[in-house]
């Protein structure tokens, strides 16, 4: 089970590198969305691994409402590029 988490951490490094290297703001937003989802799934995996329902509920909440910040930030960036 731990090898699943190790593999997920390695996969998490891919959008992290993308967010670091790419200068396009929208590519960084894509990497942000990818990382936000991946970390939420990792929280769910950890909750299953430890059999902890409290962490599982928090993981579900972060997965469901965590991307609202992404949407709000995308709106502000879109208005900036247009104006």
């Amino acid at each position, binding site marked *: 089970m731990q090898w699943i988490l*190790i593999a997920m*951490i390695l996969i998490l490094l891919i959008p992290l590198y993308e967010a*670091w290297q790419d200068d396009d703001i929208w590519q960084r937003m894509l990497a942000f969305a990818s990382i936000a989802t991946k970390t939420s799934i990792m*929280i769910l995996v950890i909750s299953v691994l430890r059999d902890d329902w*409290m*962490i599982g509920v928090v993981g579900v*909440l972060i997965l469901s409402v*965590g991307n609202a*910040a992404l949407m709000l930030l995308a709106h502000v960036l879109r208005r900036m590029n247009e*104006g």
Partner: protein
Amino acid sequence: MCWPTVQARGGIVANFSTDLSVDAYVLAIAMLLPITACMLVTQVNPYHALVIRGILGAVAALVYALFGAADVALTEALVGTMLSITLYAIAVRSSLRMRLGVLEEALPERSPVADYPQPLPAATPVLSALRQALRQYHMRLELVAYPDPQALQAALVTKDVHTILLPSATAIAASQPPDSLTGHSSGQPLGQSSGQSSGQHSGHPSRSHTPPRRYQLQTRIQRLYEILQPVLPSDVASLDYLTLKSNPQTHLPHDPSAAVEPPPSMEVQS
């Protein structure tokens, strides 16, 4: 020197898995936090830094949940990431801007699709040059429409806008500014003779020898003048720096960006 210890523990990690012993994946996840923090502090563009701040918040929520602090993880994801990013994005967007006053005839009616004014093609070169100059400083251009040149000058005096854009003919017609304005025609492009500058400074523009420019920019902020002057194309527009005399009635408290005005006694090196 730490490797033998790690290798010796390698075989008995499974025995400590129920304890708070350091597993390999705990170390790997915990290492993500300083990595993203280093990524954040090396950013130059404020908008890029906001995106990286969101990534840092997501990784921090993962680390908090990993260590069993579910409430802290939820707070970090909701407040630390969502609310702070939104507020900072609005703050950066509101502060890193240059309000440019233009005539209404240069702007048609608002587009039904987008709620921002589309400039006419005649004003496009100078606006694109301004945007390109301001983009280096991560600033954006905000257009404010006024009905006539007198309203433009009044808006500049009352610090409603940072810079105004006048057509050259209008600028000549309105070359006599109000009493609270002192014009410095030091905005001549590089390579131009100083004769025209002295002519404009004395209130008698001598534009007969040189072709008239299409637009004239007047700013009241010295830093904007320093940014725009070297990069503004000479065949598109000229730039003037106006020193506002101290007048308590012209201070408007509703514009926080007006706090960066130069001192009234400031002079510009031509």
